[in-house]
């Protein structure tokens, strides 16, 4: 965060009504009035600095940072000063200006080397590129894509988009031009995709054919298929609607096997390694596991659309913690679906219902170590 948070940031929301008179002097009267109006409308008071998981006194490992719904959030100056930051925090979508595109049904998320956040929007059939540094929103694939789902970006910032309606993968260059499309004939309903940058593999989950197709990310050639459709026994290595995939630092492939309510792990050669999870409502169980991502410490994040939370596991499948709940306020989700994690530890979660992409920050093992030590809890940090 910035070195000096604004006073508005520190304001305890519960005491708002009492303090509002004092604040009017220091704040713009218009903003104050809007806030007051909002408050009267019954918006839940939220202090984002306290949106951390797990809560105190435990050491926070996930922090809420921001919500993006469209251009308004990225560049507030270009829009009418109707929406205050508090409206955004409350997750209330303000009416957008004519021609200002807004996320409708976001699915896949990816982040490029410049920190631009790419969100596939199945509702409007295009990919949004949120450049937070330049405060710009760009669009990829307007009039080219029809139902973009999974996204992946390689180290040269080529963008791979799975289009589940056109049964193909589209590639866009860094400048936004279309490089090509491939996969027709191999893919029936491509959903989530993942890229193994070392091996140059593009993994595509085909949720209709119930397997994962592997393509060469440079030559775009079909290589092989991982897994097969499940029968009622759902033996290891078979899928019931695999929707999303992720790759860890060792090149292992993690697939969220949605209808079998489990996560399956394969090595880069396609050999089954392990699986975990079963249907249920305990922590570590799944109902509809969808988006999956791996952070810098090789923890596995799994979004569950039914629970509207993100469960975090170690790479052997032991549950570590979860965050999120059903709701429309920051830190809560309505139909949570996609997830992406960048190398800086930013966790971006998309929701189908509210059309938001919420940004969280993972506090890494190394960053959290001093806090644990302060509390007298020894931590072994994995040698890098």
């Amino acid at each position, binding site marked *: *965060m910035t070195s000096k948070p*604004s006073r508005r940031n520190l304001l305890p929301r519960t005491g708002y009504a009492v303090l509002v008179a004092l604040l009017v002097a220091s704040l713009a009267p218009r903003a104050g009035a809007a806030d007051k109006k909002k408050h009267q409308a019954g918006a839940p008071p939220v202090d984002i600095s306290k949106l951390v998981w797990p809560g105190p006194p435990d050491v926070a490992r996930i922090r809420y940072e921001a919500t993006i719904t469209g251009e308004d959030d990225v560049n*507030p100056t270009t829009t009418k000063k109707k929406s205050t930051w508090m409206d955004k925090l409350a997750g209330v979508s303000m009416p957008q200006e004519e021609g200002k595109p807004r996320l409708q049904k976001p699915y896949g998320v990816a982040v490029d080397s410049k920190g631009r956040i790419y969100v596939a929007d199945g509702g409007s059939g295009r990919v949004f590129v949120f450049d937070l540094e330049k405060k710009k929103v760009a669009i990829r694939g307007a009039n080219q894509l029809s139902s973009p789902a999974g996204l992946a970006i390689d180290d040269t910032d080529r963008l791979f988009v799975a289009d589940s309606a056109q049964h193909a993968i589209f590639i866009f260059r860094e400048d936004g031009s279309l490089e090509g499309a491939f996969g027709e004939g191999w893919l029936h309903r491509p959903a989530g995709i993942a890229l193994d940058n070392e091996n140059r593999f593009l993994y595509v989950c085909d949720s209709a054919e119930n397997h994962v197709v592997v393509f060469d990310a440079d030559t775009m050639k079909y290589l092989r298929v991982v897994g097969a459709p499940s029968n009622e026994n759902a033996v290891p290595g078979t899928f019931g609607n695999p929707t999303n995939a992720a790759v860890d630092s060792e090149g292992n492939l993690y697939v969220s096997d949605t209808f079998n309510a489990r996560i399956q792990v394969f090595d880069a050669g396609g050999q089954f*390694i392990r699986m975990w999870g079963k249907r249920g409502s305990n922590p570590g169980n799944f109902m509809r596991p969808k988006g999956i991502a791996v952070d810098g410490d090789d923890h596995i994040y799994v979004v569950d659309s039914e629970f509207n939370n993100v469960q975090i596991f170690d790479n052997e499948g032991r549950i570590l913690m979860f965050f999120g709940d059903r709701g429309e306020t920051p830190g809560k989700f309505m139909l949570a679906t996609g997830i992406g994690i960048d190398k800086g530890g930013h966790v971006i979660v998309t929701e189908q219902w509210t059309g938001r992409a919420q940004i969280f920050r993972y506090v890494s093992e190394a960053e959290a170590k001093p806090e644990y030590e302060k509390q007298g809890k020894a931590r072994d940090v994995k040698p890098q």
Partner: protein
Amino acid sequence: MKVSRFFPILAVVFFSTSLFAAKHPIPLDPNTNADKCIECHADKTKGASVHSAMSMGCMACHEIRVIQSHDKKHEDITRVKLIKATATGQCLTCHEDMKGSADKSTVHAPVTRNCLTCHDPHTSKYKNQLLKPAEGGKDENLCLQCHIQGLNVPKDGSRHAALDMGCATCHTTHKIGAKDKRENQFHLVKDAPALCKDCHDPTDAALKKAHHNQPFGNADCLGCHDAHQSYKPKLAQLFRHAPFESGDCESCHAEAKDGKVVLTTNPSRDLCVTCHDEQAKQIANAKVPHPGAQGECIACHSPHASRFDRLLKDPVKVCESCHPLQAEMHRTKGHLHAAAFRDGCYTCHNGHGGELPALLRAEGNRLCLECHSPNRRPRFDPATGAVTIFNGAVRLRRDYFASLPPLDLQAGDVMGHPIAAHPVLATIDRSDPEKRRPMTCLSCHQPHAGAFPNLLVTDTNSSMPLCGRCHNAAAPPPPDAITNSPVATQPAAKKKKKKEEKQQ
């Protein structure tokens, strides 16, 4: 929301770390010679132990890819990657003999997953490009990063001096072969006693005297001795026969003749019975006799010492030698009932014969609920440090119940699992009503092993096929309840009765 507030940290993190490593910093030709690589990577070719494949050039394992730029603004991209997807896959292209198939052979676990756990693919200071030597203390020994043998020797115990000579003295990590052979299972250079005899000469006078001048040259050393460490002197195994422990060899052995063991009484069974007449009576008079117990006692028990309680040679393998069906399950099924295949068949079956079919220790659900009921009453036995069940007949590890949460079910309950109203007893198993089998735990679960953790009889993870065996439209109408069924006296039925009485 002001996005700019959190931008600085975004920017710092994004730009300070190089995101990916696969891009080669210097543009290369796809047919680059190894000499060119060595200009920068000279360190990979120097060292005490260099991979022989290095002489074949870098391109034997690595591949250079050049992706040409689509316009003049961008440079071509050079990538260097392995030819195969995984490092292990790359190694196996030449070292195919190291590959084992999981069902037929036993492979050192790290070998199956990642060769680079132990080896450096290019060069190392140590033999076979190991990351650390296979000898030395805890910190420098590669094997001791995972294994703990010899590290926690008790004060009065003993430690095999050969541990200081390095693990490779007795073990060969990559040995692959049939699982049931000990030398394969423990990756031994060769099996005992031949292995032991490389250092310990059986003709040595002191060694002979220590073995009371009995012929021991061809005996299995590991029957009485632990190869690594022991709580007792001379690496003795944990469980010892009382006369053996007290050195009272004469009670069983006469002086050896022509290099052969001579017992005071023959056959050996008669010798055992002189003390263990109780067991002999049980074997002879059992209502359900165990044919396997009619022969020599030493077919299953070790006469001197053993790693296992009751001096069993092995609590599972001795049974499997006659029961191939269970041995097959042990080999092939993914999930095993720990009580059977870890703690031993004798947990549930009485090897000396019993009152009940299949030599079971208790009838029906009572057998399972001895451990799985909240009313279980394991007793702690201070003499052995074990917990006992079945009135002391079975001794189990002290932590046996630590990881065994009980079901909400007690011996004699007629319903309650998997849901409160599901019958578990006193009704007919409707999956095959012709047989009129009563409902028990075994109506739904397998006692030995299954494909999934809950050991369902359908060998599935999903409960649908299991439930469908009874709960389907095509199933025959419910058969009459077993006579005198306690189901009839269930609370719901009672209430109904009372209601009817009242109405009358």
